[in-house]
């Protein structure tokens, strides 16, 4: 019997159209697969078996009635557990929200529903999206489906592992400093962080408001473009969402990079980037050249300062964003209190994990009277410089090509006790969030142990189509076994 979980979303769509398979059959196949394999991978926090099956019947009835359905109707999707889903728990992998059910749907959740996608489960993550290995989940660690001893990356580790392990054909993650791209690279799948403002953040539990962006994770670029079509667009509920014309990103699925100007910034190949990663990405550079792109080395001189600036800005915003988890209206409340101060202090001490508390304290410190100018204000200046650096590079190039992460997925437990080393895993991705530009991670090889390597293709603001075209062309022209 054929394995229905082996298909891409666009393949399933054709099968639905041709009545080769029904939506409930696909949903059941995924639920069985999750029940069989997720005990080892642990990608999901919540499995939505009943609601997904019920929804599958509804969508199938619409197919049967001959209704014109969107390209992702009836496709199961895994959603990161920091995206609000009415009626389904949204935990942010935190004890603080362990039993929290949002009273409203995020804008992206609504859009998924309108297009007939079926939420099959909510995925594990680093608590409140803070981390790069999904080891900071308050509940359990997620394992990399390629090698169960390795981390899946983070913070959207559950979403990347679900797609990599065929526990969902597509998923949504969120990316504040690399949280979609790095786990996509670690798990050997494709992940896109859209331009800041392209996808509504309404209903995404905020980590760092000026950096957070929701994006798609999938097994190929076609599914990425199709899912981006669903989630992108202006939202009146999000003042930072851009009011720009709606585009069809599948029109960018063109197998042609002739004349495309690709810049390879040398700062992204420095110390800490492993030899195997360097080699794989260099090979991809050569392949682009062979496909007709003009490739040359370039420079993004402010890159070194992006990481500290990122951690200052992200932690500052997080320290305010996470203030609302105070044990008063919802979420975890300590049992150990005699007065209001106790409720605050103990609920937050007991409800948040170590990494979250570290970043709240860091963020509180950099915003404190007397330190604001030295840290937060200076970090904002660096941010402007980083943005200008990208703007300047994009005067000469259409795309910038870099490794996504300095190394392949590391062993579970190997970095968890060294926060600084863990922060360094973001070094190649954070500057993209700081600048607000779009970037995709595409698999471009494997190391000796067979662990996937990802390359990052970075585009201009709101120019997702060029990023998608380059990634698609690469994907179409490179033999599967090579990546």
């Amino acid at each position, binding site marked *: 019997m054929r394995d229905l979980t082996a298909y891409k979303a666009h393949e399933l769509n054709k099968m639905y159209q041709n009545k080769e398979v029904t939506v409930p059959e696909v949903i059941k196949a995924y639920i069985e697969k999750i029940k069989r394999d997720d005990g080892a991978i642990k990608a999901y926090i919540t499995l939505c078996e009943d609601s997904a099956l019920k929804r599958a019947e509804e969508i199938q009835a619409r197919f049967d009635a001959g209704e014109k359905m969107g390209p992702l109707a009836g496709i199961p999707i895994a959603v990161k557990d920091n995206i609000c889903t009415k009626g389904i728990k949204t935990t942010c992998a935190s004890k603080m929200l362990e039993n929290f059910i*949002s009273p*409203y749907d995020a804008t992206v959740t609504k859009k998924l529903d309108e297009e007939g996608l079926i939420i099959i489960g909510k995925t594990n993550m680093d608590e409140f999206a803070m981390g790069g290995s999904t080891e900071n989940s308050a509940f359990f660690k997620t394992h990399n489906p390629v090698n169960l001893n390795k981390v899946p990356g983070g913070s959207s580790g559950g979403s990347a592992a679900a797609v990599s392990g065929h526990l969902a054909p597509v998923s949504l993650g969120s990316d504040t400093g690399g949280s979609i791209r790095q786990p996509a690279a670690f798990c050997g799948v494709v992940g896109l962080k859209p331009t800041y403002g392209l996808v509504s953040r309404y209903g995404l539990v905020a980590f760092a*408001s000026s950096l957070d962006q929701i994006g798609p994770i999938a097994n190929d670029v076609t599914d990425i473009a199709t899912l981006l079509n669903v989630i992108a667009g202006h939202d009146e509920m999000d003042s*930072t969402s851009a009011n720009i014309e709606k585009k069809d990103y599948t029109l960018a699925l063109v197998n042609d990079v002739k004349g495309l100007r690709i810049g390879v910034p040398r700062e992204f190949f420095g110390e800490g980037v492993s030899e195997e990663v360097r080699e794989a990405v260099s090979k991809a550079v050569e392949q682009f050249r062979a496909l007709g792109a003009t490739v040359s080395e370039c420079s993004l001189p402010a890159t070194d300062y992006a990481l500290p600036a990122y951690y200052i800005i992200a932690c500052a915003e997080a320290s*305010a964003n996470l*203030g*609302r988890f105070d044990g*008063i*209206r919802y979420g975890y409340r300590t049992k150990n209190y005699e007065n209001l101060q106790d409720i605050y202090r103990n609920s937050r001490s007991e409800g948040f994990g170590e990494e979250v508390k570290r970043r709240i304290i860091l963020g509180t410190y950099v915003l404190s009277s007397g330190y604001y100018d030295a840290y937060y204000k200076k970090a904002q200046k660096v941010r402007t410089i980083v943005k200008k650096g990208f703007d300047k590079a994009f005067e000469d190039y259409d795309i910038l090509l870099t490794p996504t992460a300095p190394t392949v997925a590391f062993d579970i437990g190997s970095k968890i006790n060294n926060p600084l080393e863990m922060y360094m895993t973001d070094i190649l991705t954070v500057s993209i969030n700081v600048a607000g530009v779009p970037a995709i991670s595409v698999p471009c090889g494997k190391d000796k142990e067979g662990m996937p390597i990802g390359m990052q293709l970075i585009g201009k603001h709101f120019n997702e189509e060029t990023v998608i075209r380059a990634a698609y062309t690469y994907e179409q022209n490179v033999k599967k076994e090579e990546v």
Partner: protein
Amino acid sequence: MEYEVVIGLEVHAELSTKTKIYCGCSTEFGGAPNTHCCPVCTGMPGALPVLNEKVVEYAVKAGLATGCTIARESKQDRKNYFYPDTPRAYQISQFDLPLCEHGKIDINTDGLEKTIGITRIHIEDDAGKLAHDNYTGGTLVDLNRAGVPLIEIVSEPDMRSAAEAVAYVEKLKGILEYIGVSDCKMQEGSLRADVNLSLRPVGSEKFGTRTETKNLNSFRAIARSIEFEIARQKEVLESGGTVYQETRRWDDEKGEGYAMRTKEEAHDYRYFPEPDLMPIRLSEEYIHHIEEHLPELPESRKARYMNELGLPEYDAGILTSSKHLSDFFEAATAACGNAKAVSNWIMVDIIRVARELGVEYDALPFTPVQLAGLIKLIDNGTISSKIAKEVFEEMVNTSKDPEKIVEEKGLVQISDESAIKEVVDRIVAANPQSVADYKAGKDRALGFLVGQCMKEMKGKGNPQILNKLILEHLQ
């Protein structure tokens, strides 16, 4: 030692927009607890604020009406602190780039004009309300008020007495009412003041250490808390002590102030730019349009009443002190054309009635048109001013039209000369002593005779005709 009092005020006014500042929830006062709420104003995870454009418009109006410069670009900031009435654990306010700056308003105390500087006006959101739960002994949170738009108006430390502070708040309240941006109901807390106060030796340039008394919601509380704080600081200084910079609370029932927290305990609010909202950019056209459509302000109404209607300055000042009162005056004047008579009725009777009934001037039991009707009845000789007083009281009690009251009670004035002459003849004949007194030069006797005639006619005699006929008779 003689001390000079230095006072600066921070006034919070709730804006009278229909919806909250960052979501579509109703701002209506009252309502069952937590019914005017949504994910945004209850601080649910993932919910985001969207600025209500009306709030900006109202704040700009307030700025223009107080002579402020309007910022072409301003921003909003997060002010972080934990309190159960603040669901996000930060208030969205404006820190270093407020919407309006550098304004002023003129006040008048005991005939002395003075200009009070306005440092800034900024927009922010109100907090919820906490209530003690007598049943469980716990505290309950009602977030209906959370997210109601406020403007905070910060004055320069330009006031030197409680009277000046009260005059300033009265003037400010009048302006906000006139431009229609706040209903300024102090008892509902939609206008409240924080008083910053310090003393310094007379002649000294340097400010003394100030204290801030928060959340005063009546003119009486403002005045009394200032007097209390002046006396307290004076006593501290005169006994050789030190005034500490602190935040204080005023207990209006006991008439006493208390220290809440000292400078050392003060919050570090860790202000930073609100990343969920874009900067507020205003075009020249936008500001110009609001300026052009700004309603007439009390100052200019007062000048108009004096110059065009010939009212005395004092009366014009009282009439324009409240927008509702001034609107009442204008509507009644428009309906009867006798501004002086309307003004007299307001000054003598209407202010008294409003005070007795405890109502605002927009909630009187009769309309401006009804008052105008009453004045017309006097002007066309239908009733005497004495009878008019009776009709007025009836109008207050029943809200009936004055014409109807006159008709029902048969109060139409008697102007028939022969009817009046008959009474005059009778009264004069019956009071020979008074006639003699009058002829001996005692003018008072004339008044007595007129009074007697009026009494005979139950007050309905036309006083001019009556006077004329008595004089004729006596000569």
